[in-house]
């Protein structure tokens, strides 16, 4: 019979960054200032918050497509070179590309499970990032992969057939489309 283990009791207080309001610090009262070279640094908080008015410019139809459950790629009309990500001009010929709709069914080309991340995405950890390859498309697409167990990561996931799902309530972000195993 397995021995029952008690959960460990916390022995460390959580560190937070609120700090405290301080209106003064000690300072030499006399004329001797030589001790100031040994003074500890004063560290204050500087808040910084911005909202940008970000335009997707010529890439906007891609997001309009996702909002309508349709996946658009960009194709050079003469060579047929096709980008999975929006790209207004082809990098080889310099010519303008055209929009083409594809079913966005593909395979996992590379992936990772993020157990940590940037502040914005920490609450979502662990999550799976994957580069998806589509038949007839020359480059890859970065998206989230759902429906796989993050604890069971394996190189065997590479090559897995995946299909797209679209958010019903669009956020007009590339995550309006995400991928799940197709079989």
């Amino acid at each position, binding site marked *: 019979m397995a021995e029952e283990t008690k959960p460990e009791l916390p022995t460390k207080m959580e560190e937070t*960054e609120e700090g405290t309001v301080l209106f003064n610090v000690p300072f030499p009262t006399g004329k001797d200032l030589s001790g100031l070279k040994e003074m500890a*640094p004063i*560290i204050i908080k*500087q808040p*910084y918050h911005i909202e940008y008015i*970000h335009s*997707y410019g010529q*890439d906007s139809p891609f997001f309009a497509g996702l909002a309508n459950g349709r996946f658009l790629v960009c194709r050079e009309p003469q060579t047929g070179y096709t*980008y*999975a*990500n*929006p*790209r207004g001009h082809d*990098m080889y010929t310099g010519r303008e590309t055209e929009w083409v709709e594809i079913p966005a069914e593909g395979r996992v*080309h*590379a*992936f*990772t*499970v*993020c*157990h*940590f*991340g*940037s*502040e*914005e*995405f*920490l609450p*979502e950890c662990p*999550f799976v*990032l*994957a*580069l998806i390859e589509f038949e007839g498309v*020359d*480059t*890859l*697409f*970065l*998206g*989230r992969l759902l429906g796989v167990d993050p604890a069971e*990561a394996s*190189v065997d*996931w*590479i090559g897995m057939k995946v299909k797209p799902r679209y958010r019903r309530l669009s956020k007009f*972000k*590339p*995550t309006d489309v995400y991928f799940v195993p197709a079989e």
Partner: protein
Amino acid sequence: MRPVYAVSGGVSKFTKARPDKTFPAIVKEAYDYALADLGLEHPQFFEIVDGTVCSYFSDHFARQLMAGIMVQDYLGLCPKPSHRVEGGGATGGICFQEGYKAIASGYMDVCLCYGFETMSHVNTWKGNEFIALASDVSFDYPVGGFYSGYYAMMVTRHMKEFGTTPEQMAYVSIKNHMNATFNPYAQKHMRLTVEDVRNAPMVAWPLTRLDICVMSDGAACTVLASEEGLAKLEKAAGKRLPRVRVTGIGRGTDAMRMADRPHQSFEQFLRYNLLPHEDTAESRAYYRDLWDRGFRYPGVHSFRAGRMASKEAYARAGIYDPLHELDFVELHDAYTSSEIQTYEDMGLCRYGEGGPFAASGKAFMPGVDYGLDLPEEPVCPVNPSGGLIACGHPVGATGLMQAVFAIWQLQGTIAKHFGNPTLQVPNARRGAIHSHAGTGTYVTVSILEREE
């Protein structure tokens, strides 16, 4: 172009946080060290130096636009010419090359390159967010912007294509951390085993915390000079200075979005990306076989920018067989996996052979006990200093730190600067420094040589 000499350098000790000083004062530490090593005081150097190049990566970390001029001002170098360069992780390497260009072109006889980053002013998670802003903010960042995640995706593809293992990556971590135990400038001093690396907290599968460099506060600087500049410095110092020459620079680029990297044909690879020493029937057959099995170049497993930077730098420096013609390499190991990828880009081994190369012992230091059973003798030590993984990565300083360590290696002065001779590469005559940005978007390679 005129000959360019790298005559001196200085590095602040890299550390997690330097709340005791502002960034200009941290650069001042590196600057004072470089001048003291020349035997010069600031007023003497001021009379000789023609101008500067400043390197820092992030306006977000600095939260101070035009931070470069604040350093120029604090060092007492106004009103000399200066400009700031920025190219992600390669900022320091680009700075070094811009200083090189200033000398080589005849614009300056003496140029100071300085760089810094203070990354401790935000918490690690916000720092990851700032760094991830160096990926496409419309298509990459919103999906889960995290650089360790991007590199981990490259790893899984490298594993799939070539059979590279996390244990082979752990060898890089062990090597670089162990080397750094003899480098007093390094942020981390750790003796590790493969199990330690694999059992560390998982960050982005399969990369653990010990596969990834940390954020740092730090600064570094180098003094570059023409023959005329060297003569002026020697006259002022009243002594002969060791000759370390920059014999070649190279730089390459690639698409910002990793997903957009092309999948070139075998013929295109041969035409544009093959290194001269790989142009043999045997290596052509090796690559033909890779292509037949589905390999595409550069894909997400290789850095075309690193290959092009190497190719250009080697051609200028007259290097044919890098593994045997370089005595050491200081390369941008932000991840153990990217060190392995870079072995291949720099031609220390062929594409696909980086994993076995990492575990072979060829890139280890002679005379250091790593606690590993290494099948081969050291040939070309890679990151003898400990690299980014152990030294830390205060972005704008990193590429210049590599230059400083390379200068000391080639001067044969590692014992003097590190306080012990363990990391001195025996009879080091030629070395390469490699600085790398983004997911492989800007890469610089510079070759330094001792001139007898």
